[in-house]
């Protein structure tokens, strides 16, 4: 992989989320990949402690289908989101694998409410049959231990 490919990928992924292109977004994920959002600062254990998210392909697909569901009352009206990205820092890179960490500001809004979250996003990427795909993603929220209302979309 080249640094430019990685940077483009991270920007494109955030763009898909902001544009609500969720089915394209699901196609970026490898079958065993996990989306982890810790509950605690510097949390090490995603399994035996509570996390905000620790989701496999099935759960992510459920999220996407639910957002489009006719009887999803918490999405009437729909939420919108917006990612503002710093340039990704590439921490590991080889021909077919890379790890990058990106600082982001994430805004989610619905009705009269708007929430701002500061994120540190870690991507583990792999090239499979020529395509770059997500092998794992960890999103740390700066105030992860705060009392939030609903966070309905995907930071």
């Amino acid at each position, binding site marked *: 992989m080249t640094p430019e490919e990685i940077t483009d990928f991270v920007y494109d992924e955030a763009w898909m989320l902001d544009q609500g292109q969720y089915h394209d977004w699901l196609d970026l994920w490898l079958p065993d990949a996990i989306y982890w*959002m810790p*509950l*605690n600062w510097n*949390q090490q*254990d995603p*399994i*035996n*402690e*509570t*996390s*905000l*998210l*620790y989701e*496999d392909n*099935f*759960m992510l*697909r*459920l*999220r996407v*289908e*639910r957002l489009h*569901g006719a*009887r*999803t*009352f*918490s999405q009437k009206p729909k939420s919108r989101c917006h990612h503002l990205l710093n340039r990704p820092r590439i921490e590991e890179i080889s021909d077919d694998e890379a790890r990058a960490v990106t600082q982001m500001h994430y805004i989610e809004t619905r009705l009269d409410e708007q929430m701002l979250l500061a994120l540190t996003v870690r991507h583990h990427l792999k090239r499979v049959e020529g395509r770059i795909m997500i092998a794992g993603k960890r999103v740390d929220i700066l105030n992860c*231990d*705060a*009392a*939030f*209302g*609903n*966070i*309905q979309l995907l930071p």
Partner: protein
Amino acid sequence: MVDRSPVGSLTVAGAPLRYMHRCNWKMLVENQTDTCHPMVAHESSAGTAVKIWESMEKTEDTPKPPAMEIIAPFMSPYEFFENMGIRTWPNGHGHTGVHHSIHSDYSAIPGYFESMTEAYGEDRAKEILGENRHNTVYFPNIMIKGPIQQLRNFIPLAEDKTLVESWIFRLDGAPDQLVARTAMYNRMINAPTSMVGHDDLEMYERAQEGLMADGLEWVNIQRLYEEGEDLTQEAVLNGTTERQMRNQFDAWKRFMTGGAA
């Protein structure tokens, strides 16, 4: 809950979830024993999970995703919740899941029953694990899920604002898979990022808005009311009765008026 540990003790596991609700605390406490909302309010999450699973190409060996074990039971029919039963005690306490519950069909964890039998003897171990209470309300504001080692604390901050903390516990001396399932339940059902949580909070906030509008003077909690209902007595009834909600309001009224009512 403590009995479920082979050594008789619990340890807090990780940080608690903290979820802010823009509604009155009583709505949350009522919701704990409301067995008629899951199949409607959670159709968007649990119903969609079932639909996806049914539409997936699979063989008999395809493992069921954990989401199906945790979220799908919310789509159980009214009959299931009716037969699950409800028990009320005086002073606003009570629990759902007298005979069985949405936690009854969780898969067995290897080695757990053996260690329980060793600690308590087979009969007592079966008795402890046969208890499948769903939600136990300790009025006014604590809810415990014994079979999955969770405690929820409903903290009123204003008439329209409630902080919900959800704590989980490790059963000391039991296999790790149990606390892993508990952590999974907590994040799938009770996190600010949980789809099931989104379903519920939307209903609470809409209901709160409705109450603030003052259009209706009464909220109806008459479901399965029986003539001459005596809330000073323990009772075991059909799981979809709203007796436990009436029980809570009876206690609240007495405590708020210092026994004058």
